[in-house]
């Protein structure tokens, strides 16, 4: 990444460490290579977009970053809240030969094998939404938001059954946070309805609210504007900016609506056939011949590298 893009990201100085560092990420499903050596960084407090034609592997990147898949190779490190987390290690990896001579590495691997898993990624500060909305449809809207906050809640069975003072205080705080987010998302009236009953647009907003309730450092939005009308899309872009500016999260999004992508993102990563073909500011991407070729298609010889 060059100094110019850093400047447009509003990051002062090159020494600021990236929030998310994806290095050589490779994902294979049997013989199919879905991602091939994907590397990019996400700067803190930026809005980064991940674009590319259908089937380019955008959602696969998301799935690897959020612990939905175990990546085949590569490094994924998150540098949030003053601590560095290896997002692959916490999922519980296979033992390597070198572990058998290094007790510390062995112990660490064993620990994460026993107690690791996707939930550790959320604890590290990553939240996400899905392209096809995945709410808990049978829980109410408020319960959806409460479930997401449980990392920060008192979840002791005995204290919960006896409703001790500490437990009630923690529940009250969670409810306040939930209603705060309902207010931000304009969903207060739907608070006690089942999540599955909400209209589509509201479900999208609820999913973002739920992701925000985990108090993430990095929020990954997978096609948040899919199926929204132009007015709703405009509201969404305001909302995304608001999340970044007021709630201090970093946004990584996948989106097909180029108008939205170009207007809100500061940094764009373009994927095609599982490889990064370009990254830079919206202006650079707009005029990049490789990107145009990937989107519009060209004769093979026209592509100049």
């Amino acid at each position: 990444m060059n100094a110019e893009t850093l400047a447009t990201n509003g990051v002062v100085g090159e020494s600021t460490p990236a929030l998310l560092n994806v290095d050589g990420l490779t994902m294979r499903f049997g013989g199919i290579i879905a991602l091939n050596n994907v590397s990019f960084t996400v700067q803190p407090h930026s809005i980064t977009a991940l674009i590319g034609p259908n089937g380019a592997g955008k959602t696969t990147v998301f799935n690897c970053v959020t612990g939905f898949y175990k990546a085949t190779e590569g490094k994924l490190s998150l540098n949030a809240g003053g601590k560095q987390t290896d997002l692959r290690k916490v999922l519980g990896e296979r033992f390597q030969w070198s572990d058998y001579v290094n007790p510390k590495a062995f112990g660490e691997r064993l620990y994460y094998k026993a107690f690791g898993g996707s939930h550790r990624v959320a604890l590290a500060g990553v939240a996400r939404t899905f392209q096809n909305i995945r709410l808990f449809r049978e829980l109410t809207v408020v319960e959806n938001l409460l479930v997401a906050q449980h990392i920060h809640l008192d979840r002791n069975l005995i204290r919960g059954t006896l409703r001790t003072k500490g437990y009630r205080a923690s529940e009250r705080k969670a409810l306040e946070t939930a209603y705060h987010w309902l207010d931000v998302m304009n969903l207060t009236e739907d608070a006690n309805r089942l999540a599955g009953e909400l209209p589509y647009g509201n479900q999208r907003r609820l999913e973002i609210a739920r992701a925000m309730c985990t108090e993430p450092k990095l929020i990954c939005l997978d096609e948040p504007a899919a199926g929204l009308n132009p007015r709703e899309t405009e509201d969404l872009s305001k909302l995304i900016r608001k999340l970044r500016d007021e709630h201090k999260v970093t946004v990584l999004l996948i989106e097909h609506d180029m108008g939205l992508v170009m207007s809100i993102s500061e940094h764009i990563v373009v994927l095609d056939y599982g490889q990064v073909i370009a990254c830079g500011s919206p202006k650079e991407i707009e005029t990049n011949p490789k990107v145009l070729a990937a989107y519009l298609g060209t004769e093979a010889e026209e592509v100049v590298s």
Partner: protein
Amino acid sequence: MDFHILGQQLVNGLALGSIYGLIAVGYTMVYGIIGMINFAHGDVYMVSAYLTAICLAILSYFGMVSPFFLIVITLIVTVFFIALYGWSIERIAYKPLRNSPRLAPLISAIGVSLVLQNYVQVSQGAKTQAVPTILPGAFRFGTETEFIQITYIQVLLIIVSFISMAVLTYIIQKTSLGRQCRAVQQDAKMSAILGINTDRIISTVFIIGAAMAGIAGVLVTMNYGSFDFSVGFITGVKAFTAAVLGGIGSLPGAMLGGIILGMSESLFSGFVNTDYKDVFAFSLLVLVLIFRPSGLLGKPLVEKV
């Protein structure tokens, strides 16, 4: 019709039904959360009967005679150890198979069931065991010749069952832990992405299920007094039937199914024929499933488009 027989059979049916309900809770919760039928659950109940006998023997060796303390201490100790059994069974036999085809944990469950039966048979002997009556006496209503008799232990059994079920319903519906259980039940992967440790929630469900079966084991052993290593099978099948009757996966369904099954069995044996009471119970199941394939309170499975 003799009303005192009707009344007597209703009381017996209620006692039997609440036991079925308690055990059915274990089947239905495990099915709800990992979609597996835990065939070893009946044997967990059987082990708890032995634990009850052992606990009573030890307590009376130390000279304890007060029925109140005998019952309370036996309940606590048995529930503790049986919860330990439930937890270990899940860790050893089901967790390693979490991502394998659906049939694998089912086979593993049958294996656990065989292991438990044989392990108890080898360590405790194949003979039918008996415990002395701890709380003799009964309430009697009616005249000298026509009366309804409710033993104290039956009263205790009904009260303890209903309290356990009420507490369980409260935990599932109102506490933070219950909320997580419901979330994992709906979408385990999504829950993990929100930071919920799904393995821990699944363990908790197994512990709760085993504890319920343990309570049932203590109460039944004190009520009937005799048991052997194979009682788990038929009781397990009946409780499973109750869970299916009420709609597997539904907690109130399991309780309702248990009561209906117990009542119908006891009414049938009171008024028609004792030998054919099981035939009647299972015919009832078939009839209900013809008209409501997902059980009385189960949600019909909607095909996703």
